[in-house]
């Protein structure tokens, strides 16, 4: 059965220049363990690459059950000059939550 980030966590996106940061906070400790293991910067980059985004850095805050992803070049050239309808990328938190975790996705697991 496939598990989405949405099933385990909530998220919020913020902007600075052309960089989006998206926090992912697990609802419980078990969920955080799964996310820590499977929601790697590589997985996130693969999900955001079509926006021209990358590289991706990940910061861990285990005491809060949270991961903070810093995704460069995700905002169409930067909030102030982007032509995007959502130049701040506020909606990108919802894109993060659509990621299907590779260890829980049969196709993804087979590919590994």
């Amino acid at each position, binding site marked *: 059965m496939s598990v989405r980030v*949405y099933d385990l966590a*909530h*998220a*919020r996106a*913020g*902007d*600075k*220049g*052309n*960089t989006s*940061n998206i*926090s992912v*906070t697990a609802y419980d400790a078990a969920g955080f363990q799964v996310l820590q293991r499977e929601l790697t910067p590589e997985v996130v980059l693969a999900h955001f690459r*079509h*926006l021209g985004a990358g590289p991706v*850095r990940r*910061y861990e*805050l285990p*005491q*809060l*059950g*949270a991961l*903070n992803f*810093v995704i460069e070049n995700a905002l*169409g*050239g*930067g*909030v*102030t*000059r982007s*032509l*995007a*309808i*959502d130049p701040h990328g*506020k*909606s*990108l938190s*919802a*894109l993060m939550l659509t990621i299907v975790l590779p260890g829980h996705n049969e196709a993804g697991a087979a590919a590994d």
Partner: protein
Amino acid sequence: MRGLSNLFAGAKIAATEDNVVKDRIRIGCGAGFADDRIPPGVEIVERGDLDYLAMECLAERTIARETLDRAKDPTKGYTPVLLERMEAIFPPALRRGIKTVTNMGAANPMGAADAVRKHAREWDCPDYRCAVVVGDEVSDLMRAHPELVLMEDGAPLESLLPRMASANAYLGADVVAQGLATGAELVITGRVADPALFLGPMLHAFGWSYDDYAKLANGTLAGHLLECSGQLTGGCFADPGKKEVEDLAGLGYPLADVWVDGRVEVSKTPGSGGRLDVATCTEQLLYEMHDPSAYITPDCVLDASKVTFEQTGRDRVAFHGATAKPRTPTLKVVVGYFDGYMGSGEMGFAGINAVARAKLGIEVVKERLRRRGLTYEEMRIDLIGMNSLHGNDTAPEPYEVRLRIAARTTDKKAAEAVGAEVRSLHMQGPTGAGGGINFGAKQILAVKSVLIPREWVRTEIVMEDAA
């Protein structure tokens, strides 16, 4: 009724005279962006039992736009919503003895102070003192130092100077505290780091020093949590069936109780809607934060990587574990510059074959612009309902879709043509095109940043004259 509330306000003012050191102050957030909702700001003043109210209204580039306003009219250049917001919030704050701090001065803090004073009489305000923070405007310094390096791309500042619209340094909490130290009931600033609007009252009330890193850390973190108003109290959070927020429509603004020893608890307007708990605090902690162990502000380098939250009551949370390192020797300057024009327009399609008709509309507009000889640095095509937010090419076809075309160019006429051509699809495009909008051409004010030595910036507190 008015007599009663004035009597009450008088008693409160006496209790908060500057010579009385309180062991706890309460700071509320009255606005988190320029056009933030005003009613929750009034509500927190009336029901929050505040000592201080901070209103943050200055996004990265808004000051550039306001610098242009000032160039057209020297009395303008402050946040456009200043008077509407102050009319609603300042008189009740004053009556209750609440001191107000705001960066709505934007590109013209003195002009903002004058405008408020002019109207304060109409608003039936009792007499008040207003301190104005000046010195964040550093465009002369930028022109004198074309060798400075842009943080974003490493290019020399020189490349932007011919197009520069504004340059403002992010000031720290010290200038806010200095403003309050004059005894002013209102402190108006231009560019000040957002958390500093909240840390300033703490420095003033408790006399915290810049080598007391534990207190600076907590004060800065409190400011960071509060600065986006409703984002701490259940805004940006609700997801029906998954994450519920009670009375989101009545969302209240946040406040912080801060003790002299640096302890902080955050809460929100009593009786207001929304929620404030460990989950909302965690989301807001990481909002616009990159490396949580090095969040650089003009006042300190905050390390929030070990922070924990503790629910201490309903809609009430304490935090622990914030630390800080000394402030850096530099200040960040945001340089606003002209970056051409953006033109855009939208058109709707629905029913059978809607997406194919929208795609034909896109090709028609592009070809018409091309045949007119108009060129663009960058053009962006969206199908709203399919890919406009996440760029997803695999979305299923919806019943209805809106095409959107946006383009950037240095030629204003070419920018204007984009929305006009989109809108004309009503009559000269594919069948069944409806709901067209021409958004016209907007001048783009972009921003880049440089760091400058702190000592280059000369700030001053100016008392606005009541006479």
